[in-house]
């Protein structure tokens, strides 16, 4: 059982206290997996850290029974200068394991993490995915009543995700977990109950689907609002302007040549409007009528076609 009694958590900032939660009283059931849903910065990770004991509430109490794992997520608690093997040994010592138990644990972590020779190299040489594999294997190597996962599927490749799912399913026979994720489908698949965190309030739902619907409606409202705001703020279609400018340029060329339109270059450039930016900020984007411009402009898909040769040239070549 995990019981939060009048828990508040705030961070002291230059602008005063920033409250993440205010006076939260909640009982998390012992027999259910709980999914935590909420937008970025809502306080999902803070909630997990509070339950895991990695952080303490500013006021109120958290009563817990049973062994609870440290919150495992995108920032695993691994010492960069030590190897994965040494980190595993350290974790084993913290939990008071004997030497034999620690050796068995290291073997298990090596097998599950599956990072090959990197296992005996410093963690600072690992990629983010490798770090997450080791942290996951390390957590799974110890028996807990509750496992805390923070964005478990955010890193790692497909094979690792599959292994992680299988291991979680296997561990579910004896343990329960609290999972925070942006992937609503994953939460619905793995959890029974749900918590939606938003604007410093926690809403607990016995059924995770209700939580997803509640969050989805909220999300849809937010999206609609954002769309309306964007429509008000954004200038009207730039690509069309560009096309017309290009047309004007072509017309100017035609006028100069005193005749119908002729190919002006060896490549024909067509522009099309796209909603998704394809260039990183600061990279070069193409603006057909003007010089090259910098910055995250609206993306323009550039399609380069090889121009067909005029028929008379083809005939001449065939001859």
């Amino acid at each position, binding site marked *: 059982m995990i019981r939060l009694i009048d828990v508040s958590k705030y*961070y*002291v900032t230059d602008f005063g206290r920033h409250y993440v939660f205010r006076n939260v009283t909640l009982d998390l059931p012992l027999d259910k997996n709980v999914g935590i849903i909420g937008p970025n910065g809502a306080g999902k990770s803070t909630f997990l*850290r509070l339950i*895991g*004991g*990695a*952080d*303490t*509430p*500013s*006021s*109120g*109490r*958290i*009563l*817990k*029974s*049973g*062994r*609870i794992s*440290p*919150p495992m997520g995108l*920032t*695993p*608690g*691994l*010492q*960069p*200068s*030590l190897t994965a093997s*040494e980190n595993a040994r*350290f*974790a084993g*010592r*913290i*939990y*008071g394991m004997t030497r034999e138990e620690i050796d068995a644990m290291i073997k298990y972590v090596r097998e599950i993490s599956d990072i090959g020779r990197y296992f005996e190299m*410093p963690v600072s040489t690992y990629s983010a995915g490798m770090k997450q594999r080791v942290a996951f294997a390390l957590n799974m190597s110890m028996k807990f*009543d509750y496992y805390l996962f923070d964005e478990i599927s955010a890193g790692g490749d497909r094979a690792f995700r599959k292994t992680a799912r299988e291991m979680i399913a296997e561990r579910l026979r004896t343990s329960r977990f609290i999972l925070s994720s942006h992937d609503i489908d994953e939460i619905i698949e793995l959890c029974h109950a749900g918590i939606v965190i938003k604007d410093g309030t926690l809403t607990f739902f016995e059924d995770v689907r209700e939580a997803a619907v509640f969050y989805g409606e909220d999300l849809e409202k937010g999206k609609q609002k954002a769309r309306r705001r964007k429509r008000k703020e954004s200038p009207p279609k730039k690509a069309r302007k560009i096309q017309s400018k290009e047309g004007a340029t072509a017309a100017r060329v035609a006028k100069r040549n005193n005749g119908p339109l002729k190919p002006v270059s060896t490549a024909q450039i067509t522009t099309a409007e796209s909603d998704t930016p394809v260039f990183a900020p600061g990279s070069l984007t193409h603006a057909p009528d003007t010089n090259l411009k910098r910055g995250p402009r609206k993306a323009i898909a550039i399609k380069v076609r090889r121009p067909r040769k005029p028929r008379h040239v083809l005939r001449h070549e065939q001859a």
Partner: protein
Amino acid sequence: MADVQQTSELTRQRLKALPMSRLGQFLYELREGGRKQANVVFALIFREIRTQSKEDDYGYLSLVGIVVEPAVGVFAVAAFWYVMRVQEIMGVHTLIFISVSMTAFSIIRRSFSSIPRSIKSTIKFYAYPNIKPFDAILANFILEISLTIVGGVIVFVLSWWFVGLSMDFQHPLEAIGIMTLLICSGFGLSLLLGTYGAIYSFVPKIFSKFTQVLFFTSAVIHPASQLPPLAQKWLAYNPFAHAMELLRLYTLRIQPFPEASVSFLAAFSVACLFLGFAAYYANRHRIVER
């Protein structure tokens, strides 16, 4: 104030199974908690040894450096006195005189310089609920002070083995008492500086420089009683000078300066411990949040 309680289900089951009084339960939980914290401190000490050997360019030699540092300091200062043609200070061989005070001063130096940095170096591990910043300070303090004391013992053994100098401990318990007070004040200062060092990065830098000033104002390389009265008056405000003088009194029977007082040193140690724990308690959330 926030109160986080975590009791293992297994422990509860065991407690239910055993017929125990309330006091028995309390003592059982205290012992279990102590065992857990001892595991954490033990693990952190081993981690510190591995980390220092890996992160330092000299590997395990960096740990040897901590052991050898007092010896190097002693021989350097003794050589300085030899050059000045001072072979004895108040009837005691210079090497022995310096050995006693340099070993004690190394504890102060470590408390001011390296130990306060341990909170920052273990920040990755605060995701583990068992590990608190206090454990990091305690583990680093135990490791470094043990190595320093081993270094001091090596100096005495070397002096006895090669030069044939030995100390006549007249008051060993009093000497151990003074060392304990010094260690307590060192731990309090480490906790104080470590806490504020984790919040304000300039704090450890300033205080590591401050040790150089302390070296010359704590009667480490010269007896305070031979200084002019005005200097003695100012020196009486420095508790570390009291510690050096009293330690030499109980180990070498060198008469201290008149103001030397055990109660002043004891009061300073208690004040350091109180300030250290108070600073840690008041800022424990802020440290973890960082």
